[in-house]
């Protein structure tokens, strides 16, 4: 191995450099970008293949504070994944974004995102991880807000960013608490257990990026961005960052915090699956399904099946990216042929014939999502459920709810996957097509590649094998198989199968639902409506934001009307005092008399019947004499 720095540079900086160069030389935009990412990918693959031992590099960043980067097998694997999907997405975008004005900007931002994501994966130091964590968030913000001039988009980007920011704050607090506890932040050097507080804060930081409850609302908002971006960032890579972080720190986390992680993961998986069930917007369905799948991964880490989660991360990245790219194709197609609101499933239907390649890839990926055997999704989900089962048997009692809910979610997942598939591709088209359309190879080649990667064979020859096999195949030694018997694979298959069948029964082209689908209103019953709005989380954020804003208005009011005057009390007091003195001054030397003299004058009028005018020297003399008398009485 030569100097690791060179590899790191290649790995991390090349995409960024590509993005910037592309922005500067717009003529060679695509070539530069694709080449740089491709080259980077090649390096990653090379490194992965020739992997012997972790490469570690560290440098002093702040005085007496070192940052470190570790290239080990897992990070390399994920780096490869990210670069691969990124390459596909970039390729896809060459067509998809072709007519956009800001395509150079788009590629620049994308390059920046890839850079940040790679950094995040390679960072060994929690603080460095946080740095890239934030950068990834920024990139996400920038990409969501790509169409900044359109109504609503900047706002959605802001919400996504702010929700992430809140989580980041928790993460930073957690990291700094760890720093206070251990004096180091390098994950590979850390040992022992974090305190509960810091574990919780880190967990809540991770939830943010991985869109777990209560943060999950931002991911649906993020769907306003360009769809390839959604494929890369909001399906495959960035949202997995939280899971990745949890994966890295899981051995150090406090036990109770892990329990919470498991519970939150389960709940998120379940709720998001339910939400996905009632959506009309294709991207929203995918978004909720992403949330749900991330919930699975979180669950897996929580119950201790962290390798399984990582495996699910891997497989999910492929099939979900595939789904998104396919969705992008659909949207592009619809947009092209009808200029309709291109994301609403109520305008789709019957696309099977129109865009065949897309259909097939969508189908494969969808089945992987549904968790049917022979597809990657099944393998990884199986591992997680196995882990959960083992966890439940260990803890007993209520802990069984976790695998149970996981299984139910699997059913729902299959159900909505079927719904999506059927409503989009089967039956009759619900839109009038005005223009002809030919599928572009630039669209379906990447999609198809991802779809192929959802087939079991790429991971293990045995379709029922789970993550342990895959990892041991890669030579990752410490992957531990969490035993759970044969019950779980069976139940999982059953659930997925039942879900699919039920889905078909419900949403087959001639079912009542499918027939009325095009005029289906937004569900009005409270429960369904809440599901449709994703538990109204975004409204919750909005309320929160509104009240914070109101509070800030109140503070500003206080600042203007209260603090300012309070501090001006000095000024006002002295002005008042000076006015009093000025009045006194008048009594003394100039004009009207002061209180005593006025009283005297009044009495004088009464007694003498004359109009008494005010005195000046008199008053002064009076004052002197009064003071003499006062001094007199005071001292003697």
């Amino acid at each position, binding site marked *: 191995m030569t100097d690791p720095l060179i590899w790191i540079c290649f790995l991390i900086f090349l995409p960024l450099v590509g993005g910037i160069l592309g922005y500067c030389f717009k003529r060679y935009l695509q070539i530069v970008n694709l080449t740089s990412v491709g080259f980077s990918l090649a390096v990653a693959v090379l490194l992965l293949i020739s992997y012997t031992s972790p490469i570690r590099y560290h440098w002093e960043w702040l005085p007496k504070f070192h940052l470190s980067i570790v290239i080990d097998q897992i990070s390399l694997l994920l780096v490869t994944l990210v670069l691969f999907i990124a390459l596909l997405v970039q390729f896809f975008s060459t067509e998809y974004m072709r007519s956009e004005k800001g395509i150079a900007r788009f590629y620049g931002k994308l390059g920046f995102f890839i850079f940040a994501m790679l950094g995040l994966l390679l960072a060994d130091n929690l603080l460095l991880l946080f740095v890239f964590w934030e950068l990834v968030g920024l990139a996400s913000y920038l990409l969501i807000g790509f169409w900044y001039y359109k109504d609503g988009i900047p706002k959605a980007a802001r919400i996504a960013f702010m929700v992430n920011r809140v989580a980041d704050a928790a993460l930073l607090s957690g990291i700094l608490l760890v720093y206070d506890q251990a004096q180091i932040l390098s994950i590979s050097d850390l040992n022992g257990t974090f305190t509960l507080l810091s574990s919780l804060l880190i967990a809540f930081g991770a939830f943010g990026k991985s869109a777990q409850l209560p943060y999950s609302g931002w991911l649906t908002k993020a769907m306003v961005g360009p769809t390839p971006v959604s494929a890369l960032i909001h399906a495959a890579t960035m949202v997995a960052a939280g899971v990745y972080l949890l994966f890295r720190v899981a051995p150090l986390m406090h036990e109770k915090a892990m329990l919470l992680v498991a519970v939150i993961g389960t709940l998120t998986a379940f709720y998001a699956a339910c939400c996905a069930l009632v959506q009309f917007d294709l991207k929203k369905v995918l978004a909720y399904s992403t949330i749900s799948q991330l919930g699975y991964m979180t669950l897996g880490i929580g119950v201790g099946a962290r390798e399984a989660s990582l495996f699910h991360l891997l497989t999910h990245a492929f099939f979900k990216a595939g789904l998104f790219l396919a969705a992008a194709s659909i949207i592009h197609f619809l947009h092209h042929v009808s200029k309709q609101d291109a994301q609403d499933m109520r305008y789709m239907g019957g696309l099977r014939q129109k865009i065949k390649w897309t259909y097939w890839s969508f189908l494969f990926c969808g089945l992987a999502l549904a968790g049917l055997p022979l597809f990657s999704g099944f393998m990884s989900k199986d591992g997680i459920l196995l882990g959960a089962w083992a966890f439940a048997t260990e803890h007993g009692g209520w802990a069984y709810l976790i695998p149970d809910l996981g299984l139910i979610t699997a059913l729902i997942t299959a159900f909505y996957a079927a719904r999506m598939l059927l409503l989009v591709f089967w039956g009759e088209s619900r839109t009038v097509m005005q223009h002809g359309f030919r599928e572009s190879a630039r669209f379906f080649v990447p999609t198809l590649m991802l779809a192929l990667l959802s087939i079991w064979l790429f991971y293990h020859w045995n379709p029922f094998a789970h993550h342990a096999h895959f990892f041991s195949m890669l030579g990752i030694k410490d992957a531990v198989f969490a035993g759970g018997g044969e019950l779980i694979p069976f139940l999982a298959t059953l659930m997925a199968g039942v879900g699919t069948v039920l889905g078909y029964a419900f949403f087959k082209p001639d079912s009542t639902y499918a027939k009325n689908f095009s005029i289906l209103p937004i569900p009005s019953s409270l429960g369904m409506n809440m599901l449709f709005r994703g538990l109204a989380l975004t409204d919750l954020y909005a309320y929160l934001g509104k009240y914070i804003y109101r509070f800030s208005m109140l503070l500003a009011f206080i600042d203007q009307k209260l603090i300012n005057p309070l501090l001006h009390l000095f000024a006002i007091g002295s002005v008042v005092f000076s006015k009093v003195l000025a009045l006194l001054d008048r009594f003394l030397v100039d004009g009207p008399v002061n209180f005593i003299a006025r009283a*005297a*004058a009044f009495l004088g009028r009464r007694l003498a019947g004359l109009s*008494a005018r005010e005195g000046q020297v008199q008053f002064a003399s009076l004052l002197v004499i*009064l003071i003499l*008398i006062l001094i007199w009485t005071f001292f003697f």
Partner: protein
Amino acid sequence: MMLAVQGLVLLMVVIGCAIILLTKNVVHAAYALGLSLVGIAGLYVFLNMELLAVVQILLYAGGVVILLAFGVMMTNRLQGEQVVTGSRSPFWSLVIALATFVGLVSLFSGLEFTNQQVNIESQAKPSQLEAIGVAFLTDHLVAFELIAFVLLVALVGAAYMAKIASDD
């Protein structure tokens, strides 16, 4: 006899003051002041300070009262107005004056006199004038020089002011 004269002189002072206190007429007040001042001069005599008494009569009773009378004439009389003045707040003035009186009396009653045992005979020194004259040129030479200058200043100032006043 001595006591009777003393009482008379005291009465002069008090009556003069009383008139000043009670009258509204400025001219009357000026004359009453003259009466008081002459009475005070008499008191000086009793204290064996003849020079002071003379100065008092000459300058004060003579000078000040006449000046005041002139002042009254020149200001109020010119218009043919009444030479009376209003009072402002007799009650409060009285209260404060009484307080002053009480304060001064209590102050005086607390005084310790360092020279109490001096007998009356020693007061009757004949060479008082001479002693004062010597003091003017020795102990108080500077003061003597200065008061001459002060008089000059007062003269020049008053005259100039009056001149300017009557010029326009």
